[in-house]
Each structure stands twice: as structure tokens, then as C-alpha cells.
């Protein structure tokens, strides 16, 4: 049985008693009479400040994007990735461009609407999807972030792409140990304590003014989410074994090792059906601090490099950084593709996007955004090609298509003009 391969890969020596989570979970949903489909996983990777264009885009007439220096690492999953060109977002003038890149990326919120925060923000794609699919998994969603700067000199907007709503950040996790504990903690019920504080909070809220209710909503939602997660994890691990992985220790890691570790945790979460929705920031937007790239043998500010890319030596270094991040992204894809699940691989049952909120880091343009979509979403997306969209196609069109593929039934997403033409097979 093919399923056994998967079990072995992840859970080590299991037993024949165990069934595949996705079969079972899907069986709980008899509403659709269609052939049971594997659950679709959604992840969005963010790389800051764009990519050097002439090393990323193959040019108008060429389909050979995998020969581009920056994209070469994706050759290992060549027929399962799609390069999309022509997408753009509105750059709202007069407010900081980098802050918009990251904080507005996944919501593409109406740039002309009334602002509830310094930047046009809204509930982001990952959470709109999680609202719909999180009942399938113990953990609602994962927000992973590979920002290791300890100076925290920059704003919250540069460091987060995932938001519950305007000014309500979805706290991202940067410590692999904490991610590990979240994924694999044996669910010991804390119900008596959460019951106590929920009752207390309900009394508390009753006396509050209307203007404070939204803060209390955050509180209630959070407590219930934690409660639900513990219950579901408890049930989950009563049925399935935990992954055969040791808790990460605090031995110092190189930049590459660290990101790889976070990637591995994401793969395990998807494979074990612990969650089906994730965001992954490879690095924060802007951030003036020099970054140590051990594997590249230099310490440089990625942001600084993008501004001086007119110089050849700078551009060379920048292309190295670009490629470094694409390599790490490709490694995640390879791992997903190595996991058999039913008739396909985990990658086939996923939709993993790598993108950036800036088209060009030097000129700060938001047209021609670099976007790669990996995985065919259960065969629905035509992969292994370049999809050239007409100029200034809203990025929100892609998000709308992805939301629809994830089963949200949405008809419009932010400033979308319709689902992305030509995406589907």
C-alpha cells in the first residue's frame, strides 16, 4: 500500500492499524458526493524586496524560466511549478512603501477605501481560507517567520504578512522549539482553567463599553482557539503517532540551517494533517540591519543591496541572496513531493506560493510582482509553465483563485476583477 510509505517516512515504524488522516477526515464530510479528494494545503512564502528581475523573469517570449539563474533550484520540481507574470498591486502614495509591501501583501485590501490602520489592511488570505478549512485540522493555521534580528528596530508591519484584520497581527513564530511544541505537545486538557477565565472574561466584558469589545473579542477568540487546539490535538494523537523528530535544541544554526528547520516543521505539519494553512516569511521586509548569510560567506543588509544593485558587485551579491532563498523554498517543495499520499504526492495536494510585495527593490515598483505557484492543487492548476497575465492584473485575482480553490466560495477578493485567467488546467 502506498499509504504505508507516507506513514513510514513521517512516523517511523507505525502499525497497520493506522489509517491516513486525509481519508478519514474527508470521510467526515459527506456533503460533497464527489470522489474523495485529498485535503488541499495552502502555504504562502514571502521573500522581501523583490528579486533581481533580469535573473528571475525569462523575458516575454521565453517559457524557459527554469534556466533563469535565480529559478534554477526549482528544476528538481520542474513540472510542478508555475511562474506568473504581470501581477501588480496598487502602491498607495504618501505612505511608506515597504510597510505596505508586507502588511498589505496577502489582503490586497482596497487601496482607496477608508483606512482603519496606517496602511490599507484587512483579514489576510490565509485566515479567510482557515475560516473555511480549519475544522479539518487540530491547528488552525501556522505563521512562521525566519526573522532572527534581535534589535527589533522596525515596525510590526514590516515583520508580518499574516493579519486577522487591521491592526490585529497574527503573531508569528520564530523559535523552532516553540513551533515544535505547538505541533507535538501532548494535549493535556487545561479546560478547567480556560472555563474559569472564559466565565470571568464574559462577566468582565459585560461591563465594558462598546469601544473595548473588539479587544475582548480578540481575547475570547484566542482562548477558544487554544482550547479547541488542545482538544483536537489530544484526539489527533490518540489516533496517530507523533512524528519521529526530536525537539530542536538551542545549538546555534546557520541562516540556511535555521530556515531549513522551519521548513521541515512546516512539511511535518502538512504531512501529519496538523494544519492545512500556513504563511512563511523567509525574511522581514526592509529592516536595515545587516544579515549574516553564513552559506554565502557575507554579512550584508538585503535591503541595502537592493538599493545599490546598479553596481555590478552589489548585484552579484544580491542575486546570491535571491537564489539562496529560492533554494530553500525548493527544498521544501522537494520534501513535499517526496511524500506519497494516495495517488499523488503531498505537493500535488498543495498550493504553495512564493512571492514578494515589491516588483523591484530599487525603484519600489509594485508591478510585475515575482510570483511562483507550486503544486497543482489536486490537479486543478496547470503547472510547469509560465502564465503571462496582461499588464497590471491585480494580485488579488490570484488570491481570489486560490481562495476559490481552497473552497471558500468567494466571488470577489479585495480589488480583484475576477479569478486569474488561465491559471486552471
Amino acid at each position, binding site marked *: 500500500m502506498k499509504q504505508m510509505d507516507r506513514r513510514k517516512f513521517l512516523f517511523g515504524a507505525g502499525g497497520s492499524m493506522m489509517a491516513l488522516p486525509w481519508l478519514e477526515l474527508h470521510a467526515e464530510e459527506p456533503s460533497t458526493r464527489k470522489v474523495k479528494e485529498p485535503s488541499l494545503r495552502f502555504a504562502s512564502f514571502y521573500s522581501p524586496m523583490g528579486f533581481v528581475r533580469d535573473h528571475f523573469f525569462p523575458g516575454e517570449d521565453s517559457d524557459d524560466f527554469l534556466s533563469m539563474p535565480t529559478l534554477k533550484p526549482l528544476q528538481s520540481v520542474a513540472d510542478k511549478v508555475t511562474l506568473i507574470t504581470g501581477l501588480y498591486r496598487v*502602491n498607495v502614495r*504618501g*505612505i*511608506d512603501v515597504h*510597510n505596505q509591501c508586507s502588511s498589505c501583501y496577502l489582503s490586497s485590501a482596497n487601496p482607496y477605501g477608508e*483606512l482603519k*490602520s*496606517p*496602511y490599507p489592511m484587512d483579514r489576510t488570505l490565509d485566515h479567510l481560507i482557515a475560516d473555511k478549512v480549519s475544522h479539518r485540522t487540530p491547528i488552525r493555521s501556522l*505563521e512562521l517567520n525566519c526573522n532572527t*534580528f*534581535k*534589535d*527589533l*528596530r*522596525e*515596525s*510590526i*508591519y514590516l*515583520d508580518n504578512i499574516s493579519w*486577522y484584520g487591521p*491592526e*490585529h*497581527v*497574527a*503573531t508569528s*513564530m*520564530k523559535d523552532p522549539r516553540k513551533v515544535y511544541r*505547538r505541533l507535538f505537545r501532548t494535549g493535556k486538557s*487545561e479546560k478547567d*482553567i*480556560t472555563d*474559569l*477565565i472564559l*466565565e*470571568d*472574561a464574559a*462577566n*468582565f*466584558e459585560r461591563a*465594558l*463599553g462598546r469601544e473595548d469589545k473588539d*479587544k*475582548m473579542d*480578540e*481575547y475570547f*477568540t*484566542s*482562548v477558544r*482557539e*487554544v482550547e479547541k487546539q488542545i482538544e483536537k490535538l489530544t484526539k489527533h494523537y490518540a489516533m496517530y503517532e507523533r512524528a519521529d523528530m526530536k525537539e530542536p535544541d538551542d545549538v546555534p544554526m546557520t541562516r540556511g540551517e535555521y530556515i531549513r528547520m522551519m521548513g521541515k516543521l512546516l512539511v511535518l505539519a502538512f504531512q501529519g494533517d496538523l494544519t492545512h494553512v500556513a504563511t512563511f516569511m523567509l525574511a522581514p521586509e526592509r529592516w*536595515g540591519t*545587516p544579515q549574516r548569510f553564513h552559506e554565502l560567506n557575507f*554579512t550584508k543588509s538585503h535591503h541595502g543591496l537592493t*538599493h545599490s544593485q*546598479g553596481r555590478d558587485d552589489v548585484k552579484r551579491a544580491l542575486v546570491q541572496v535571491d537564489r539562496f532563498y529560492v533554494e530553500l523554498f525548493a527544498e521544501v517543495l522537494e520534501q513535499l513531493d517526496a511524500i506519497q499520499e494516495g495517488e499523488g504526492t503531498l505537493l500535488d495536494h498543495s498550493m504553495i506560493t512564493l512571492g514578494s510585495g515589491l516588483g523591484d527593490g*530599487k*525603484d*519600489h*515598483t509594485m508591478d510585475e510582482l515575482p510570483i511562483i505557484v507550486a503544486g497543482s492543487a489536486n490537479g486543478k492548476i496547470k503547472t510547469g509553465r509560465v502564465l503571462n497575465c496582461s499588464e497590471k492584473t491585480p494580485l488579488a485575482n490570484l488570491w481570489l483563485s486560490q481562495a476559490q480553490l481552497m473552497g471558500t466560495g468567494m466571488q470577489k477578493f479585495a480589488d480583484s476583477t475576477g479569478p486569474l485567467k488561465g491559471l486552471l488546467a
Partner: protein
Amino acid sequence: MSHSCSFSSPVATGRSPAGRLQKCNFRAVIRIIVLLSLAISFPGRALEPSASASNFSMGVGALLEQHCHDCHGREKTKGKVDLTPYKSWEDLEKNPELIENLIEVIGKNEMPPEDSKQPTATQREAMLLGLEKAFKSAMTHRQSVTPLRLRRMNRFEYGNAVRDLFDLKSWVYSINDRIIRDHNNYFRPETGKMPKVARVGNRIMGLQQLLENRLLGVMAFPKDPPAENGFNNRGDHLSMTPVLMEAFLELSRSVVNADNFDKNCQTWNDLFQDPSKDPLPVGFGSIMVDNSVVTSSTGLTLSAWIRPSKTTEKWQTIVRREDSWKRQLLAMGGTDGTWGIWMGAGIGGSYVEFGASVEPKVLRDGKWHHVAGTFDGSQMTIYVDGKQVGAKKVTGSLYTRSLKPMEIGSSGDEPFHGDLNDVRVFRSGLGKPEIEKIAAGDQNVALKELVGSWKRAEEVRTERKQPVEKVAHERIRKFLLRAFRSPPDAATLRLYTGYFDRKYKATGDFTMSMKDVVSGALASPRFIMVHDEANRSSPNYDAYNLATRLSFFLWSSIPDDELLALAGEGKLEDPEVLAGQVDRMLNDRRVKNFCDSFAPQWLKINNLVSASPDFKAHREYYFGGDDKISYKRGMHMMLEPLLNFETVFIENRPIMELIDSDFTYRSHLLSEWYQGRAATYPINVNLRDIEFTRTPVSDRRYGGVITTGAVMVMTSGPFRSLPITRGSWVSSVIFNDPPEPPPDDIPDLKADDSTLEKEGLTVRQKLKQHSEDSQCAGCHNKIDPLGFALENFDLLGRWRDNYRTGLKVDASGTLFGKHDFKDVVGFKDAVLAERDLFAKAFVKHLLSFGLGREMTLADRIAVDEIARAGSEDDYKLRNLIKHTVLHPIFSQRRQR
């Protein structure tokens, strides 16, 4: 054209995002006092604003028409600002944002543009005066005060709050939010004086700083990022999420269950101790006595009230500092056939001990007794209830340099059985009359000699005879009052006492059941959320909220019992009482939290952590070790402006001394550095506690915070100083006026050293060339002079007259189109000439921190009023803080 940037506020174009508003709306420019006096010299007539259209059109309206309409409405609409529709004060007052912008650009001489015809100085001031009045009038139609919103504690506050709630001897967790590590107890606000020497470590950049007493196994949640040009206590940023909730739940359990919680918890007996059993002998507390005070001592007096429950041969500690032969103690017990009171101290290089015989049953009669031991340089004397019971001649000098705490009621296996109270340490040997007075209950004896004291928080314990549940419920009520900062209502109390009863019934374990209750309370929104969280059914609801607001402002923590008591008596809102409390709080050591939180964020000092002068080109920035391991001089630099801030704070100096002071704190390394010597240090140099010495400054290039190495290095790149970054820093930090975000397509400056060398230009010339024709000039004309003023400091913070190319540094410029300066000293004078502007900017920072929210247009009036109050006493920092608290915007009541 070139000025469109500064004028095109999003407000004027119809969009009003909150974040942007802030940037434009507070550029307070006007020196109110000057203007008020002007108002007197221009009595009435056309220039006096009134709500009539003719008045407007004859005065300010005419000036606007003459100087502004061409570009703003008539021929062009630059910056999308059209001024032609405004034909009366009423018209203008409908748009306070516009008025504020007009004040800003006219006040800072940004408008009309340089190449246009200028109004006379008198006309300009008359316009400003009219506009200021119109602004106030416009704002009366608006909600004047933004209500405070519920927000969660940030991680710095949470750690402090938990520590204070349980009176922990240790930290809750180790975090680098607190940069300075104090190793010689230098921070003593109650003395009003910074000591000459501060022995400090740098937590965020230093090594070996992690070793501090903290709860084991307790992990902090992630650090909260600061708001843009703001602080990390901003309500709009402090939201709650499942990931954080998980952390809070985890913390609520891990804190009380930490292995070392019990022995660090000084309220253990009042909360967790099973009333059917003996109280833990630990938990009496300790006295920190400061070295620099005691070194001038002539002797020692240890005084205490005791009520023993048990008297055996075994020694029982009353008060004791353990430090080998240097130890000092007062104890009760028997040795060599003498049972009585013992005193010990390190004298003349060895430990001397003396005991006076006392009848045990005299002390054990259930009543309070006073005991004391004195050493006056020639004799040790022991007193019981004011009577001398023994004396011994001892000669030699007392050892006074030990820095360890004096523990109350326990040392090793010498716990005191019974009660202790009012333990006092004096730095001289008091005489018999004084001891008699103390024994007679006089609280005010020899206060000048007093160097430390400890009092029992609670009086007699009567709860032992009561049923366990009753004791538990009473303790929970008291605990919830402190944790929730107001008395719990009946339902809340019932919820938690009911929880206890269930747990206790199931387990029979009092301590564990109480810990469960405490865990619940620590995860409750009533604990985690601040601002407006007090129990609404309490009649003193507003006062309790004020107590919390105040303690989070000045202590970054929960209010103490005194604040809560005053709130409960309804007295806290009385301005005199409030002022007294501010004084008390500013004298309390907890105010270190304010300095640790406000100052580094205000100065954006964390940017120094990531400053990286090129390792090869500027090797001298790195010291100690080799090419692989070395330390940054920034580790020392970072502490200088922070210590200067603390000095201005503790000594209540004018905030102008943050710009220009005649003192500074420097380490040996820093002193050498400023004199151009890159002293080297061995790899094993002591980095844990570095000695910073107060150094007089007569050279006005130094002193204050702006020209410190810290600020100069963190506003530089790897290869050169960055004048624009420096200008932006000065604009944001000193004038609270962060520049607009740059446009999206900034051309590359190509201004690295080699390019400049080739072209034979200075950075300044290059930048000028670069921005002459572009749209950038509008903003850069504003920001750049502030940065070029500091150009004589190189990227490593050292003085230079010339660039390495040999070209002369040009640091001249003009501040706000008014004050010409030639060099950095002239620049400081220019800033000081705008002292009111600086003070308002500072107050705005302070108020934003104090209220935990962004400042809005409406706050402009309050900031002006606070600053004006502060100007009357020279803008002294502590007074400024007090004016802030006393202003209605801070002590506001809830709008019902």
C-alpha cells in the same frame, strides 16, 4: 514645486489615515508665550481673529491671498491644497487639519517658498497667532480627548507586574528589554543624586549578563515591536492572538510552579501557606544597603522589633549579611553558655562577635520587644527594650564595602521563629538616648543616619483559628484586589473562591489549590488587560483606573498597596494627593522601569545593536579578542546617553541638559575613544560590570545625548556617516517630527568613499548636486541641515575637521530658516533657542508613552499646556512628568 512634499498632507487631499495624521499634525511651532506677548502689542483691529468674514479678509485672509493663493488654488493647486475656498474663520475652522498644516509650514518658514515674496516677520507672527486661535476654536467642536482603550500588557510590563504582585526576589524571566544592568546599586532616585560611579553592564550587547536570578523554566513571550516613531506600549499594536494566549496560559502555570518560586515569593505566607500549618520561616525579605553611602559611615546600628514564638539554644537570625569575616548580624540564641542577643561585624580585618545575656522567657512572653546592637568605633553595645544589657570594647575600623543584601529573619538554617518588624540599619553607632527613643516607639530617630529598613507588610496573623475556606477566601479577596487593581465584585470573587473550594475539596492540598486560583487570575483579562479595566460597580472606578494608568506610566507595572488604598478612599484624584503620589513614585526604585523603557525607545538606541562599521576598514571599532571574536565599542557607547538621561531624571535637571550638559558618564574606554585613542583590552576584559564615571564636560561639542558616540555610530553606515539618517533622527527624536516616507524611486547616490574621492567632492556637495533639481529638495532642505550639523563626527563617533580626502567638513546650516549656525556647538545653541519647541516635542513623546496611544490632532492643546506649565520651572524633567500626570488629559475620567 520643490516644496510640494511638505505641504501635501493626506488630510488636505481628503484621506485621513491615522498614522499619517500624526506625522503632520503635531509640528508645534509657535512659542505661545512670545505670541501672547505679541497679542498684547497688536491690540485688536484687523489682525485680531474673530469669526467675521470681513475681519478674516482684512487680516490673515488677505495675507493668504497675497502670498499663497497663486500656487494653492488660483493658478495652480500645488500639493493638492486649495486655499481659495476659505473666505472666513468659520470656513477655516471646519478644517483643523489644514489649520495645523498652515501653522506648521508658516511657523517653520517652509512657506512661502524661499524664492517667493515673503511676508514680514510681524505679518508671519500675526498669521500664526490667528491660526492658533482658530485651531483651538475649531477643536472645541470636536471630541477633545481620545478615550483610552483596553490593551494588553507588553512583555516588559507583564514581567514587572508578576514580580511586584508576588514581591519576588528574582526576575520572572530574563529579557533584553532592560538594557542597563546595575551592579553597584547606583540608581537611587530618592537621593536626588546620581553617584559619581555607576558599575553597569550592557544586557543587549554585552556578554555574561545572562546570569541573573530568575524563575526557572519560565519563558517570556516574544518582544513587542515598537510603533513607528513610537513606543512598545501602544494599545493599537498590543493585540491578543492564539499564539500569545498559549504563551499567557503557559506563563500563568509555569510562574507559580517554577522550582524556585516558593523561595523567591515574599508574599508566600500571605497567600499560599496552608493556615493549618506553620508558616514558612522564609519570606521576611531583605535590606539592600548601598556601598557609596555606607563608606562614609562611622559605625553601625542594627535595630529591630521582635516577638519570638520559640527560644532554643539554636541561633535565630534577626538580620544578617553573610560575607565571610565581613559579615554583619544581629541574632538571638545561645553560644558558650550565653543565651541572649548577639551582634557581629567585621572590624579591623576580622570578625568580631559579642553576646549579651537575656532571659529567654522575657522575650518569649508574646509581646513585642525592641532589640538593638551598636558599634561606634570603640565599643559594641546591646540593648533590649531601650536598656543596655551588655557592652564590649572593640577597636578597629568597620568593614563597610560589602554589597550583599542584609537578609531579614533567616540565614542558612537559622530561621527566626515568630514575628519581626521595623528592622533598621544605621551607618553610625547610635547612643543610648536615641535607642531609648526608638524603643519608645519614635519613628523619626536619626533618619539622616538611616541607610536601610524593612517593615512587615501585615500585622498579626489571626487567621489560624478560622476555617481553612474562610482564610482562603479572605486571602483570595486581597490577592484579587492587587492583581485586578480594584476590589473584585461579588460574582468575580465567587468565581475564584468557588474554584478554590472545588480544587481543595478534590485534593486537600491548600497550596496547590491556591496556586490554581492564582494561575487562573494571571490568565484573566482583568490582569492581562490594562486601561479602563477597574471594576465598574466600584464607586471609585475612575480612581482605580487612574492608579493603574499612573503605575504603568512610571513603573511599567501594577499599582502598589498605597495607590490602591488612596484610590479606594476616593482621594487619589485630589490634585494635591496625586502630586504627592507622583513624587513618591518618582523616588521609588521601581521608577527604574520608566528609565529602562522610555529612554531607550525615545532615543531609538536599539539601532546601535545592529550598527556594523566595516570590520576590515574600521577594525578599531572592534576590541578585545581576535578577528573571529571581538566586542563592539558600541557596547560602552550605548550606556552613555542612557546614564545621562537617568542623571537628568534623578537630579531633576532641565531637559535642555539632554541637548547640552556640563557632565557626562564615560568608561575608560570611552574617554580614550573620544580623545582619539583606541585603547585595546584583553579578551578576558571584564564586560560584566564596567565602571562609568561622571566626567565634567567643558567642551560643548560633547555633553547631552545628541553628539554621543552611540547616536553618531547608529546613524552611520558601514563606510561613512549618513547625514540624512542623522537629520531624520534629530527630526524624529528631538523635534518629534519624523520625515515623510521617501518617494518610491530614489536614485542611487553613489556616494561611497571611493566614488567621492574620484570626484573630489564631499558628501554634502554630492548630495546637493543630487537633489538640486529633483522633487526631493523640499524635504531634504528640512532634514539635511540637521544631519550635516553633526558631520564633524565620523562614523565611529570621533571628531574630524577634514574628511579622509582632505576636504574640509562643512557643518554649517540654518535651523527652521531662523537660526544660522557654523558648527555643532552653534547647532546646539540653535536647538536651545527653540527650547519650547523641543520641550513640546518631548512632552508629546512622554504623553504618548504615558497614555499608551498615538497622539492625535486634539492632543496638541494638552501638549502645549503641559509644556507651558513645565516652562515655568525651567522644564525640569521630574516636574514635566508631574505636569503631565496632573493635566486632565492624563487624569481623565471615563466618559459615561
